[in-house]
């Protein structure tokens, strides 16, 4: 295998980056170790739990299953990219208000999966919320607070749609 370290370029939260890494290094590890973006968490490391969810070129992906070479040229958004100048997004505020987070390990992935849903489906049904978060496991909340948070965020976004759309598009 070609294990030589390579220069790999992509953008994270709108900022261009070049990392030097083995091609099979997981995007998760590059984000945390090379770029010090430790908001993205590792849970299972095999695509089952969703803790490491990030957005890549507009799609939700498990960053533990992305070899960094396949991120060449991609636009990555992590949980750090949801807030703007230290101000939480409507979605993040909703998680605070509605008991969407307890221990916090699943929370960044939940937020990214929910952000993905609300970008594509601004007015989701309960079933759509459940499907969108089906790949994200939480062992604290029992999920109901999380579903309520996403529903509340959708309502709040409907009230002030333009700012949130701009935020998620970043």
């Amino acid at each position, binding site marked *: *295998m*070609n294990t030589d370290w390579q220069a790999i370029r992509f953008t994270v939260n709108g900022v261009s980056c070049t990392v030097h890494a083995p*091609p*099979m290094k*997981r995007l998760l590890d590059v984000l945390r170790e090379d770029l010090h973006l430790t908001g993205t968490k590792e849970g299972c*490391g*095999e*695509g*089952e739990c*969703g803790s490491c*969810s990030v957005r890549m070129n507009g*799609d*939700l*992906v*498990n960053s*533990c*299953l*992305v*070899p960094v*070479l*396949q991120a*060449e*040229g991609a636009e990555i958004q992590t949980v750090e990219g949801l807030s703007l100048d230290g101000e939480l997004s409507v979605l993040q505020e909703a998680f605070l208000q509605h008991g969407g987070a307890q221990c916090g390990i699943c929370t960044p992935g939940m937020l990214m*999966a929910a952000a*993905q849903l609300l970008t594509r489906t601004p007015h989701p049904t309960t079933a759509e919320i459940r*499907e*969108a978060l*089906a*790949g*994200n496991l939480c062992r604290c909340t029992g999920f109901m607070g999380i579903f309520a948070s996403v529903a509340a965020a959708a309502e709040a976004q409907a009230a002030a749609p333009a700012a949130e759309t701009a935020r998620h598009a970043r």
Partner: protein
Amino acid sequence: MIAPGGLDAVLELLAREPGAWTPIAGGTELMVAFAAGRLAAPKLVSLWNIPALRFIETGAGSAAIGAASTFLDLRAHAVLAAKLPLLVKAASWIGSIANQSRATLGGNLVNGSPAADSSPALLVYDAEVELISVRGRRRIPYAEFHTGYKRNALATDELLYAVHLPCRFTRHKQYIRKVGARRAMAVAKAALAATALLRDGVVGEIRLAAASVAPVPTRLYQAEAALAGRPITRQTVQAAREALLAEVRPIDDIRSTAEYRRRVTANLLEEFLLELRREGSRP
């Protein structure tokens, strides 16, 4: 891992060193195997971001799906959803949204799990697979692609290029159901797909296929034969169940037992037949 970036470059690599390279698309299987140390000599060649492998074309009578199309690509395609609903439904079963954005139809087939979500739909739709190498292309029935547990018809220099599907089932009653531990993120304990016509109360053009009941995804020819040309009665349903139970070969494993899989697969067949009798096929 290397990423040559183009289909021709990948094929030349496979031809130059046959059997030495393992293609990797979205990595939802191979990255897990790699992390677990199950890839013995992992020389991986990336198929991600190769547009020549990621396409969906639909014509009047058929559809062609590039092997590196993701399951979200399939779910987002309105024509596929209308003409080949069982395949699009099966695409929604794959893992989670984060998996569906990376997992590819070709990867699901080449991985060769007997529980593969897309397989029963492809079998009842009479799919063909197109294989490509520097030597050229060839098409074979998907039913002949899996040659044994985790074995397939690909030569060492070949790549799965596309899946071809005839779109002639819009008048058929179509059925698909998966039984797993939960609705998302579960490997099938059992799954059944079916298409059939009901004309004057008689079953015709019936195709049945199941996952997780044999070393490879399997057409259920004997159960089909027990139903073809017959009305749906208590007797024919029972005969079809018995034929199915005679031809499936499920095993006990971490997800289920052979006995559970036998009963559930037969129950799925009965559910399909009762729906077919109640609703008929389309005129």
